[in-house]
């Protein structure tokens, strides 16, 4: 890669790092989300040269990150966990905190449903989510409505 491309790549990662970290945290065990994040960086690096501009760059980043995350889940989990990694707290408040409830709700979803909700939380439009998943915007809208209803039902129950 040329140094200009390296700078572009670094900018691309920096601009999307927060979202990549959040995705990695929600698809990997607490002890190995950083490994997943590194894997995402690597796959972005390898795919960057073939980016053809047909998709928006942000959509493209989510595609690579999500595909990497789903593959990562199929690998065996690491056996050894260091104490400092295990003890990492989630970035959420107490049990009544809506974000804490959202975290719990996300952990109960299968990987595909979780992807829909995570991409929506990241601020992607239905069309962009559909582009990442390879499905229709209408299907995403239906799924999002169901997910939000399920979450709100749980959220209201716990209040």
């Amino acid at each position, binding site marked *: 890669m040329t140094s200009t491309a390296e700078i572009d790549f670094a900018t691309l990662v*920096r601009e999307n790092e927060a979202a990549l970290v959040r995705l990695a945290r929600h698809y990997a065990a607490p002890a190995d989300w950083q490994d997943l994040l590194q894997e995402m960086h690597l796959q972005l690096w390898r795919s960057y040269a073939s980016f053809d501009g047909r998709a928006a760059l942000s959509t493209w980043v989510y595609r690579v990150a999500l595909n990497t995350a789903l593959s990562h889940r199929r690998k065996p989990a690491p056996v050894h966990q260091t104490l400092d990694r295990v003890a990492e707290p989630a970035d959420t408040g107490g049990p009544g905190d809506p974000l804490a409830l*959202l975290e719990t709700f996300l952990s109960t979803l299968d990987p595909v449903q979780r992807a829909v909700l995570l991409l929506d939380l990241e601020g992607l439009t239905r069309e962009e989510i559909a582009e990442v998943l390879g499905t*229709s915007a209408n299907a995403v809208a239906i799924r999002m409505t169901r997910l939000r209803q399920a979450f709100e039902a749980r959220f209201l129950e716990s209040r």
Partner: protein
Amino acid sequence: MDWNDMRRQWRAAPEAALPRERLIAEVEARDRKLRGIVRRRDWLETGVAVAIAPVFAWQAWRLAERAEWVGFVFCALIVAWIGFVPIKLWHARRALPTPRHDAPLAEYLDAERGAMLLQARMLEQAWLWYFAPFMVGIAGLVFSISGVNLKTVLYTGSIAVFCVVMSYVNRIAARTAFRDHADAIARQINELDGEST
């Protein structure tokens, strides 16, 4: 708190990014390491074949000189097998569909599932292209050189048992390492298809 507030709060949590130089250096190092592992594996397979093949080739030559054609045929079979295995593995790896990480999820999952099923089939058929030629070659060579007696029967029998056990282990590996994952991916594809309907 409405859903838009939730989204805002979700994205508000700060996440640290790596410095540019460290990011590039780490990614390049990881890329080099993984490519190195693949290269070493390919070279190791070829290296083992190159180291073992001359031993059996020399034995085949000696059998041919003595006009022991039955032994020669089995020895030649082993030499051919030693050469065939790394080529077969090399071709099989290159024939595997490589899922494009920048493809839409549905397309990516489909390619990943295809690759897993191919690898499962490869392992399930290992008895045919890996263990059977080796076993037939060794048994034929031993019987043709030393005749059929208790010692040679026990020797070839133990090799046969080893091959059967390894074939069984491969079938289990095909199921647990590939077919189960392929089924899980199929369920995820169905989940996505369900969204499209």
